[in-house]
């Protein structure tokens, strides 16, 4: 018990010092808050028109209708769940699937494009047709991209905020000074994690509320559940940053490593655009990236009111990343 209290005292002292350092660095503090809000606003202006003029049809399985060969119709493939989810958000205009010679199709009752495609399909398709309908509201690009930007911001803040900072401490000799005190590795690392988690969650919450003042983006799900996603997402990115920093001696190399990790996530975790139309192996690879799980879970909650039961797998993956990242960091860390 006494050791625990002592440990806690040291951890809190380092946490406090790190918080002071962060809060007093006004320039970067302000930038962390203002930057994501600026991006969201810029996107809101750029993408304020209708998403696209083209028709898109999502094919689930089987022999696709001939209609898809028409110019102006873009076909993509996806699983039935994904396809229908996209249809209800009007990100696709029609979903088709063929089995046993029957063509099943779904359109969104609120979408005029869907109605036009339905007409074309009826006149061009010789096989029997079976109709389904979905009535979801269209979601604007902004609704879709807000979780992406929040997640991206969290990724940068977490990875650089710990990864780069710890390497800076090492390069400057500060870690060596700390090594000469009774502070343990675990205490030091916990303090770094906690401090950055507080910063990341606070910043995300402020950006979330801040953008909501300007933009009425869609948020239909549970705020508490979204908070849990942010907590686990932030924590997993932070421990990833720590794992990178645990031995790296040079800031430049840390920078390179951090870029090597963030760049694939930026591209493949659906921050800016959906990967539904990309090859299977790309989508499979994306599942290895923590940000993918953060964003899929966050969008499910914000756009489709998903519950814990719908997103638990994403959360489990994030918890796994946290545990592995922290274990590796404590084990491999050198002052």
């Amino acid at each position, binding site marked *: 018990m006494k050791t625990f209290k002592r440990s806690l005292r040291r951890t809190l*002292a380092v946490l406090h*010092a790190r918080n002071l350092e962060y809060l007093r660095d006004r320039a970067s503090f302000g930038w962390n808050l203002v930057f994501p809000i600026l991006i969201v606003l810029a996107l809101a202006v750029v993408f304020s028109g209708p998403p696209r003029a083209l028709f898109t049809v999502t094919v689930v399985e089987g022999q696709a209708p001939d209609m898809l060969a028409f110019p102006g119709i873009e076909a993509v493939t996806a699983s039935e769940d994904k396809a229908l989810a996209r249809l209800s958000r009007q990100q696709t205009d029609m979903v088709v699937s063929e089995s046993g010679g029957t063509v099943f199709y779904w359109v969104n009752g609120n979408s005029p494009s869907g109605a036009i495609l339905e007409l074309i399909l009826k006149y061009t398709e010789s096989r029997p047709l079976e109709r389904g309908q979905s009535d979801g509201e269209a979601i604007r690009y902004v609704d879709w991209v807000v979780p992406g930007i929040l997640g991206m911001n969290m990724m940068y803040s977490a990875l650089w905020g710990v990864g780069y900072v710890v390497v800076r401490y090492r390069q400057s000799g500060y870690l060596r000074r700390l090594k000469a*005190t009774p*502070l343990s590795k675990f205490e030091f690392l916990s303090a770094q994690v906690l401090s950055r988690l507080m910063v990341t969650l606070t910043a995300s919450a402020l950006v979330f509320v801040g953008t909501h003042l300007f933009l009425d983006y869609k948020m239909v799900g549970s705020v508490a559940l979204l908070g849990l996603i942010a907590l686990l997402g932030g924590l997993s990115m932070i421990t990833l940053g720590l794992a990178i920093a645990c031995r790296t001696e040079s800031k430049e190399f840390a920078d390179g490593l951090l870029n090597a990790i963030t760049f694939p996530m930026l591209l493949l975790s659906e921050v800016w655009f959906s990967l539904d139309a990309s090859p299977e192996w790309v989508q499979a690879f994306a599942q290895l990236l923590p940000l993918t799980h953060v964003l899929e879970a966050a969008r499910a909650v914000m756009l489709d009111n998903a519950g814990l039961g719908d997103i638990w797998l994403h959360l489990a993956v994030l918890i796994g990343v946290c545990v592995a990242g922290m274990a590796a960091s404590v084990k491999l860390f050198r002052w």
Partner: protein
Amino acid sequence: MTEPVLSVRNIRKVYGDVVAVDGLDFDIQSGQCFGLLGPNGAGKTTTLALLEGMERPSTGSVLYRGGPLPKGYQERIGIQFQATALQDFLSPYDNLRLFSKFYDAPLPMAQLIEQFRLEEFLHRDTRRLSGGQRQRLLLALALVHDPEIVFLDEPTTGLDPRSRRDLWDVLQVLKDQGRTLILTTHYMEEAEILCDHLVILSHGKVLTEGTPATLIAQAQVPNLDALFLQLTGESLVASDEGAP
């Protein structure tokens, strides 16, 4: 003399193909001010790191009161490194508070602030401190837990003559409190004034050791500068006081 507080027995430290410390043997008595002298690259900092337990010797052993370095050794020693960075945006006050929390029974902060005269710059960003102020802060940080042994790696390098003398006064107080001081320096005058026992190193080996007075007498030279030059055949860091 009493039992030595620290001893090294035939220690070597090898980094790749660089032999930084090459078979040292000496004792440090309790309450002594022990000086390590030697040209740049002689192995002074490495020797300190071995004594501090920050590095392990490649071969040989470091003994604390005749035994291996004990478990709570970190708490008995205070270290002022040759170059220490502190966190950005923290004041001397914040740093003192942080380091005090690392130990179970720290000295009262007011006492440290007074002893090392930190008052006038207590709430300034540490990056804005002058060299002398910075050294006093680092020394205060090394002493928050009231250690019995204090390591000082070139504590006065880069200070003006006034600040250097100020620091000597501070070190003299530490000595009077009965602490063992282990310091490295490039200033012979400093070694002569502060140290009770000197070890002169070159290329990781001991060239000679003894009290300043015996060393000068044995070599039949006028002062330590002359002895140092004779032994190492290298020129000293230029003294900024126009010493002979």
